[in-house]
């Protein structure tokens, strides 16, 4: 172990420190080309495209999930034709159907229904052998406005069509006008059933003979006004009056439109916090002690945007993006050498052999070296871009308040350090902003624990205010190569923000 300078070191240092070569001009041309704004932009994208793609993919997944969820919620409102598309399949009289939906949509002429002359093949696709349908909403057939709000006609129309295809009982008069019939899917039928069940439904089992000769059992859930004429339930009191005019239909529409209830499971949060930070330095005890002595962690801040989904009444998951900035300040005395030259008058005698001693005065320069100290201050910042992945558990909740506990992790996407850093000797600073940072940075997954309160001041608005104290525990070294000293941050945030449910 010998860290002293070797003559070879000095030889090469002296010989090469100021050695220079002819600068190549083609390098200048390349530099000039690479610094054009267009090149910078494309190069920046090339270098970071994985990150951009990840963010885009994440947004796409989140958007798709949101769209799918919202679409599921709307299935009850949008009839689906035989191909399963969401085209509105009902139409008013004398309105020709679009040619593209001719295959999947069949217009039922009332005369066909009554006479049973409808082409039975037309119903093979549209009338499942067993189907739960609501007859109540068939009355919207003549009211385009009503159809668009609660277009559940196809369920009833199917019933009508099926009955017309050979049922021995009297045909169902679903409507007194032309009705476009589309196949309903189970979801639509179930939704209609749910709607109808709120109005004391009566179930009538009607044996239906399908066009292929099979016996089909159709459950018709009739609501207060819509039991088709000609069908008598086992309970005669539940017989529904026949809708005979457009006005009646309109009246019924107003009474029966009940928006389907769906809980607002999705939410987005916007949060901000002041950050109290504690740092633990390990690995190089001498440097760690010096750094702790000469620097301190100051307050930082954190912003978070996240989306959440309520899995059930108590449990929810949340994820998004969080930006955190922590600050460090340094203050120490830097030693420097001062050389002072002092002139001193000295008087003496020169002995001249002829004239004898002669007094002379001369000046002597004394060089005095001393160490002085200057106060040096510096700042250092740590920036994190994380994906927080958290699970929240509601421990207490009522109409106005929700108290929850949360636990999860921060997956670090980016970590950056800027400013200045205390040098190993503790007597100077290294500038980290110049690109001259000799250190490697390494990001980690940190753990997070917290609790929170969601306050709902207005029950009519889907907005909640959040107060969420959270503790972030660094699980690994963020700066692996800080003179062998590893840093861990423990951060206490109290996030304040709001939540919007949808």
């Amino acid at each position, binding site marked *: *172990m*010998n*860290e002293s300078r*070797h*003559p*070879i*070191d*000095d*030889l*090469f*240092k002296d*010989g*090469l*420190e*100021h*050695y*220079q*070569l*002819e*600068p*190549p001009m083609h*390098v*200048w041309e*390349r*530099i*000039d080309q*690479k*610094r054009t704004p267009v090149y910078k932009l494309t190069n920046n994208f090339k270098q970071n495209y994985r990150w951009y793609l990840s963010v885009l993919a994440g947004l796409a997944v989140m958007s798709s999930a949101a769209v799918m969820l919202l679409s599921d919620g709307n299935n009850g409102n949008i009839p689906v034709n035989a191909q399963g598309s969401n085209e509105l399949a009902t139409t008013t009289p004398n309105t020709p159907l679009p040619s593209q939906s001719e295959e999947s949509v069949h217009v039922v002429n009332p005369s066909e229904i009554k006479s049973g002359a409808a082409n039975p093949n037309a119903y093979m696709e549209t009338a499942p052998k067993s189907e739960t349908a609501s007859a109540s909403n068939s009355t919207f057939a003549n009211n385009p406005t009503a159809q668009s709000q609660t277009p559940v006609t196809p369920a009833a129309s199917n019933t009508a069509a099926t009955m017309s295809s050979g049922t021995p009982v009297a045909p169902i008069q679903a409507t007194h006008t032309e009705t476009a019939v589309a196949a309903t899917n189970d979801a639509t039928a179930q939704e209609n059933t749910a709607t109808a069940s709120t109005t004391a439904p009566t179930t009538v089992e009607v044996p239906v003979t399908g066009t292929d000769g099979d016996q089909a059992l159709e459950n018709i859930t009739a609501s207060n006004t819509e039991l088709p004429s000609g069908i008598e339930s086992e309970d005669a009191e539940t017989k529904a009056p026949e809708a005979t005019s457009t006005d009646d239909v309109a009246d019924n529409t107003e009474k029966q439109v009940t928006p389907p209830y769906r809980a607002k499971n999705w939410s987005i949060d916007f949060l901000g916090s002041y950050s109290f930070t504690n740092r633990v330095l390990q690995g190089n005890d001498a440097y760690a002690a010096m750094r702790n002595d000469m620097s301190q962690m100051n307050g930082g801040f954190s912003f978070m945007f996240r989306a959440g989904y309520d899995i059930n009444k108590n449990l929810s998951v949340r994820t998004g993006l969080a930006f955190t900035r922590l600050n460090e300040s340094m203050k120490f005395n830097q030693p420097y050498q001062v050389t002072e030259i002092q002139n001193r008058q000295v008087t003496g005698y020169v002995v001249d052999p002829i004239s004898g001693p002669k007094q002379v005065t001369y000046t002597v320069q004394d060089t005095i070296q001393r160490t002085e100290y200057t106060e040096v201050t510096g700042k250092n910042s740590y920036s994190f871009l994380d994906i927080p992945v958290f699970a929240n558990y509601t421990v207490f909740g009522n109409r106005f308040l929700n108290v929850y506990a949360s636990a999860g992790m921060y997956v670090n996407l980016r970590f950056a350090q800027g400013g200045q850093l205390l040098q*190993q000797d503790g007597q100077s600073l290294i*500038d980290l*902003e*110049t*690109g*001259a*940072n*000799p*250190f*490697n940075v390494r990001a980690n997954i940190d753990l997070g624990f917290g609790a929170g309160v969601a306050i709902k001041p207005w029950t009519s608005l889907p907005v909640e205010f959040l107060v969420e104290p959270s503790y972030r525990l660094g699980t690994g070294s963020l700066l692996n*190569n*800080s*003179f*062998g000293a590893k840093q861990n941050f423990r951060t206490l945030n109290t996030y304040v923000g709001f939540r919007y449910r949808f």
Partner: protein
Amino acid sequence: MSEEEIINGCIREDKASQYALYKAFAGKMLAVCKRYGRTDLEAEDILQEGFIKVYDNISKFRGNGSFEGWVRRIMVNTALKMYRKNSFKNEVIGIAEDYDEPTEAHVLEKISSSELMKMVHGLPEGYKVVFNLYAIEGFSHAEIADSLGVNEGTSRSQLAKARKWLQKKIQESQVEVYERK
């Protein structure tokens, strides 16, 4: 154009100032880059990337210390970054200490800079970077270990081997000179 004018011009993204800066420092910096690069092309790449960093960050130069030192530091760090990318870790061999007697000073004085450059360039990769950082840039073993992601023992070992290798080359060159005479 003075150094201050060049710096201010570069901050304003003035092309003439940028070119003046390149002319002023490219020669010296190319020599630095060549000490780290495995080939001339790699050295030019380091020079190019280093100058781009200098132009991008010149507004952050605070005037503490010499500007040349700042530029040089950027070049060295760019070289180290490239070096880490093309890691030499497979070449790191052992941590045994080798230490030879110093070569006599009067022998060393007779070697020209270009010959020294050739010798450094001929060093095996692992030795070369450690020797450059320690002997010429003045890094400590701890700093080298941090920069290269190796331990201090490895850094010391590489340095000792580099010295031994160079010493041998110097002796060979002296014999060559003697024979020519």
